């Protein structure tokens, strides 16, 4: 019984960590500070959250 409870706790804990780490709102990146240029621009999830505005006018192709 004790072992089962410990196992469930570990699984739930790991799931929470995984969820936390994958939440783009937290801008988590591996081995880099999310508040730096590189930290954010290497974080696909964060970019998908924030980089949503079109800023470049297109045109041409002659």
């Amino acid at each position, binding site marked *: 019984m004790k072992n089962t409870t410990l196992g469930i706790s570990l699984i739930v804990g790991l799931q929470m960590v995984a969820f936390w780490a994958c939440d783009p709102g937290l801008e988590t990146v*591996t081995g880099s500070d999310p508040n730096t240029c590189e930290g954010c621009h290497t974080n696909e999830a964060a970019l*998908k959250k924030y*980089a949503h505005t*079109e800023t470049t006018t297109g045109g*041409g*192709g002659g």
Partner: protein
Amino acid sequence: MTPLEPWEKVLIELKGSVQSFAGIDQTHALIGCVNCHGGTEPASYINGFYEAHDSTTFIKDPSLNPEQNCNPCHAAKVESNKNSMHSMAWGERTAIAQRELGAAVDHNDFDSCPVALTDGFDGDCTSCHTTCGQCHVSRPNSVHGGFINSHRFSATPDQTNNCMACHGTRISVDFKGSLTGNKPDVHYLQGKKCWDCHKEDMHADASSYATRYHMVDMDGYPTCSGCHGAEATSNNYHSEHWPGSGDGLSCFVCHSQPYYNCNSCHTNGEWQEGYAQVGDTDVHTGDKGYSEYPEFRIGYNYDMDLHDGKWIVVRHIPVSVDSYEPWGHATLAEYGARPTWEYTSPHNIRRFTAQTDTTGGASCSENCHLEGAKAELNRKRFLWQSFIDSAYTEEVKANLPVVVDDDLPSGWLRY
């Protein structure tokens, strides 16, 4: 070219063992992002995105100011590139100047044009012609930008994402054989890249050249004869028609396929979207007379000092007498000074084309000469006065030097 998603444009993708931008481009990583791009780093968590990209300090394309941001390491290129063909679009300056001031002027006279033209040019045309970063880091603005290789600086531009992003309708479509009925250019099928032929220095000061075609004395400038000169007498057709000064046929007369022509362009933004599309049909039309259509026309060589051959292939240039009205310039004063069907060098070369097809042992002259059984069919290959009169009524004077009517051999059919 389909634009990238906003997030894709700015993603630095770390793959495999690469843990940082330094693993992608070690040299430029040493500089640090903010030293070129400005902005705020580190940004606070709460206002991170907006603070980092503060509009008062953030610089999206640092190479708009190459003297400051590229010069420390690339001084010579930065200096010469100020006057390169890509930066200055000298040929376009020549075209505008001639259509406003007269045939005798060139790019050196551009600044004598009315200020509406010069200001409009600086605002519209130079927005494409171009920055270091739009060739060496990102897709150009013409296709909405975006990193090509995770912001890695590439000495050689990417053919698809850089060269053909701008040179789309008149190069990419031709080169890949995208028009219905066309086949890819033989050089494309052989895996040739743009720079295999265009060996001229793209950063060179080109201020002494009125157009790109005037650059023929520049080292590495591509010519057909540069590779194929030994074939001048390789068959009867070459022996008879090889282009010389005022004589023979431009290589393109025999070896190019139909190519895109355009009507109406190019100002006030109406051209910015939906341009250069290839879809279910090859003909595209839009507002203000905009039209894009395949065509092949042989014209008379109106500038034999510049182009070899008595006969050339011509392409319709999308300029009308009021093209620059959106810039505040109602009509071009000397619109007729320069042909609107201009010399062209289509990048859709094949040994056998509709002109040179000798299936069944026929002579290729049967597909071109205006005599014999196919004379009637062959007439559509030439630029006739009557064609201009009916379809391009404002452009009659401009194209008098190009139409073929007065110069074809006697005895040939006329229109």
